[in-house]
């Protein structure tokens, strides 16, 4: 402890160069005087200063005389060592405007702390940027008056340089940030900072230092400045998504539509006062447009898909189905989402699942088209066949994006297909069973060409299965007798007014070791734009022809025998009824027998089935019609059964014989009208066959005294055979015989010629 410090200079010890300089300094010629007389505050501060490594200086007394240590010397630069002992104002005269007030404040009792003062210092022979913080502290004496100030400096170069690099980095980041950024200051939103992206957005206009409304006039009226005003005034940030803005992207260019995602963030000072707005955001125009296009095309797709009657669905590239149109839900009765993924397979008929799943897996693995048929369960548990198809949809890079699929109801086609297959099979079997062949040929200018057929047909037509033969080859195989009939038959079939049906029976020339064969070819002409075709069948009818021939022989033999029998009956009658006195009777008997025989001819010709009224009349009147039109016949041609034909023939023979003897045909002028109809009705409304024999212009009629054979034949046999009734009117002007019978009885009746016996 020093009781009398004033006498000693220990406080000046140490302190390196500046310690030495202070000790050597001639203080006596300055305002501070001899250091031994310095006040204790100064002495303490000098001691602290000289022992500290930190830069420090002291300004003392009203003159503010400077004392400083080695640490501070470099800051004085070329002012060192001149600055020692000189007034602060003199030392820092060039910057006194800046530092003077701080010094004044310290002398007024207000300490000041100054952060980051930059100095250029020479270190290791090189000029180096340095940074320091300074604290200016007032120094009070015992009486609390300000006697000086004490300044300490702290080098913060390293910190500053580090944070400066950070700032630079941030600035760079800011500048190069993909999002646009701008700092707008003040209520007029003056551009303070913009980055590259922002400049890009606004077409590289020079906007710094300009009010937003002046810098980007085209934005006015679009609501953005108003938003800025609001953010600035309320301090509430604003976040905009996909906002539309019209901007000039190049000087003088037309305004362009852009879409922006951005935020307006208020900037506050340390005191919390809003000083500006920070704008940051992204130009999402391309994204927005793509999105809009996709929304548009998606909407289009959905609309289309819903308007289709088919089931429409989509699937992810993985094959999981993710969307179905309403038709699918309506058909299946499934709820939304139930069919997603692989849920749809629950609709597929269990039997069809393996094939459908395999097809779908194959398609999704190869990104190839998908096509399969399966039965899908309807809401009412009925299964209907569907054709499922799907196409992979790729984007412009070829990447599979999704699948679009459809299911089309093919139940009816399927049923038709099955029915067709079945009917085809049936037809095939039937044709085979019937030994029928199917053939067709083209008709070119009336000539048959390009004959083709199945094996059966070719064989039947005399060819060898598989051979390629011209139509002429087939024609040459036809028996020459039948060859001529072919052309007229074809012409009839192809005639404009014809029915288009070719129906021919002809013989095929036998090949060695074979019998002659009959075939029946029947074909329908099909006329189309491509031309005329004949399509038909052919079958072997040799057996039928043989049977027909045998039957013909039999019928002929039968006729012969009947005729011979009748001839014998005739001979017996002739023998029995000998004598001139009964020659009339003999003659009429024989005539009746002849009439009966001729009626048999008709039936034999028709194999005992039927005979027409005209033919019956012609045969019965053969012996009476002199050819001078005295017998007038008028009526539609109707078919009669065998019994009816025989009895009508005998009846007409009797009537004609009688007329020739006593009636209209016995004179030169008499006539007979034979008429019949089948269009009248009886009293019950049934269709009626009415046959009338009317004699006119003959001699006056005498009613016969007794009924002869003819009368009895007509009234009994004829009426019975026709299931009808007869009347004979012996009117004076001419005999009228009428037969009426129900139409349905015509042509009926057994083929047995039992009537022959009865008629006899």
């Amino acid at each position: 402890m020093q009781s009398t410090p004033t006498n000693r200079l220990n406080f000046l010890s140490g302190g390196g160069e500046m310690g030495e300089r202070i000790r050597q300094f001639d203080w006596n010629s300055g305002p501070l005087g001899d250091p031994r007389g310095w006040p204790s505050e100064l002495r303490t501060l000098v001691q602290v200063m000289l022992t500290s490594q930190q830069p420090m200086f002291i300004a003392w007394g009203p003159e503010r005389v400077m004392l400083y240590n080695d640490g501070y010397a470099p800051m004085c630069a070329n002012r060192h060592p001149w600055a020692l002992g000189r007034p602060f104002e003199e030392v820092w005269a060039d910057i006194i405007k800046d530092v003077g007030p701080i010094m004044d404040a310290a002398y007024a009792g207000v300490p000041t702390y100054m952060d980051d003062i930059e100095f250029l210092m020479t270190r290791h022979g090189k000029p180096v940027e340095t940074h320091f913080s300074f604290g200016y502290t007032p120094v009070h004496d015992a009486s609390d008056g300000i006697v000086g100030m004490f300044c300490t400096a702290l080098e913060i170069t390293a910190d500053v340089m580090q944070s400066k690099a950070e700032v630079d980095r941030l600035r760079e980041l800011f500048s190069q940030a993909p999002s646009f950024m701008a700092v707008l200051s003040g209520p007029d939103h003056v551009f303070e900072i913009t980055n590259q992206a922002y400049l890009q957005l606004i077409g590289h206009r020079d906007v710094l230092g300009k009010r937003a409304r002046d810098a980007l006039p085209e934005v006015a009226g679009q609501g953005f400045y108003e938003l800025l005003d609001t953010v600035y005034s309320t301090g509430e940030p604003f976040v905009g998504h996909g906002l539309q803005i019209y901007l000039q992207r190049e000087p003088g260019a037309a305004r362009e539509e852009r879409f922006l995602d951005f935020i307006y963030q208020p900037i506050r000072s340390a005191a919390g006062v809003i000083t500006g707005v920070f704008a940051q955001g992204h130009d999402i125009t391309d994204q927005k447009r793509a999105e809009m296009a996709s929304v548009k095309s998606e909407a289009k797709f959905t609309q289309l898909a819903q308007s289709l009657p088919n089931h429409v669905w989509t699937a992810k590239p993985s094959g999981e189905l993710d969307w179905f149109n309403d038709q699918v839900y309506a058909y299946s009765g499934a709820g939304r989402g139930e069919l997603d993924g692989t849920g749809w397979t629950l609709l597929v008929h269990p039997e069809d699942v393996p094939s459908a799943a395999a097809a779908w897996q194959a398609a999704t693995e190869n990104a190839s088209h998908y096509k399969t048929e399966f039965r899908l369960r309807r809401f009412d548990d009925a299964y209907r066949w569907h054709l499922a198809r799907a196409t992979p949809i790729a984007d412009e890079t070829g990447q599979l994006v999704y699948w679009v699929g459809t299911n089309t109801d093919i139940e009816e086609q399927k049923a038709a297909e099955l029915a067709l297959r079945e009917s085809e099979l049936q037809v095939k079997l039937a044709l085979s069973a019937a030994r029928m062949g199917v053939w067709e040929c083209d008709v070119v200018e009336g000539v048959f060409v390009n004959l083709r057929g199945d094996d059966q047909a070719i064989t039947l037509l005399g060819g060898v299965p598989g051979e390629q033969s011209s139509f002429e080859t087939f024609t040459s195989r036809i028996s020459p007798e039948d060859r001529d009939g072919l052309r007229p038959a074809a012409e009839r079939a192809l005639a404009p007014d014809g029915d288009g049906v070719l129906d021919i029976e002809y013989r095929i020339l036998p090949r060695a070791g074979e019998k002659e064969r009959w075939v029946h070819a029947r074909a329908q002409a099909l006329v189309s734009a491509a031309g005329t075709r004949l399509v038909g069948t052919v079958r072997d009818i040799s057996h039928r022809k043989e049977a027909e021939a045998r039957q013909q022989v039999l019928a002929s033999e039968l006729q012969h025998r009947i005729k011979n029998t009748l001839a014998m009956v005739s001979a017996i009658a002739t023998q029995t009824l000998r004598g001139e006195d009964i020659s009339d009777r003999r003659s009429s008997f024989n005539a009746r027998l002849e009439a009966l025989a001729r009626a048999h001819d008709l039936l034999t010709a028709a194999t005992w089935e039927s005979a027409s009224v005209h033919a019956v009349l012609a045969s019965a009147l053969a012996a009476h019609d002199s050819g001078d039109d005295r017998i007038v016949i008028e009526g539609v041609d109707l078919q009669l059964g065998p019994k009816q034909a025989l009895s009508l023939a005998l009846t007409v023979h009797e009537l004609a014989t009688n007329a020739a003897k006593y009636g209209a045909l016995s004179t030169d002028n008499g006539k007979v009208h034979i008429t019949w109809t089948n269009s009248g009705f009886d009293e019950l409304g049934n269709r009626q066959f009415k046959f009338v024999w009317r004699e006119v212009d003959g001699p006056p009629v005498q009613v016969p005294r007794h009924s002869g054979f003819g009368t009895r034949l007509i009234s009994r046999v004829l009426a019975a055979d026709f299931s009808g009734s007869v009347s004979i009117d012996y009117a004076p002007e001419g005999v009228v015989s009428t037969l009426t019978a129900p139409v349905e009885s015509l042509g009926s009746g057994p083929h047995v010629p039992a009537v022959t016996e009865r008629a006899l």
Partner: protein
Amino acid sequence: MAHFKVVVLVVEDEPLVRMGIVDHLQEQGFTVLEAANADEAITILSQNTTIQILFTDIDMPGEMDGIRLAAAVRERWPPIRIVITSGHRRPLGSDLPSGAQFFAKPYNPDTIATTFWDIAEA
């Protein structure tokens, strides 16, 4: 009526029918020769030169039927007039020798007789 007998050869294999027509023709004044088949008929024709009319059935047993008989007669004895009958329907004209007439069985004997008189008088 002719002053001479008209000679007719009836060829018919059925005796009853033959008897009927032969008797009837005889009653009508014809001279009638009869044969049961074509061979007999040829024999008779060879031995008898007065026959003017041949009346033959077609369907007969033996090598030669009535059609062939008629053809042979037309060949060997051209003046003889030929009338043919058959239980079959009328044969085609080309099968009959020229000038031959045909009657279907059963025929009316009176008609046959009348026809023969017409032939004889022609």
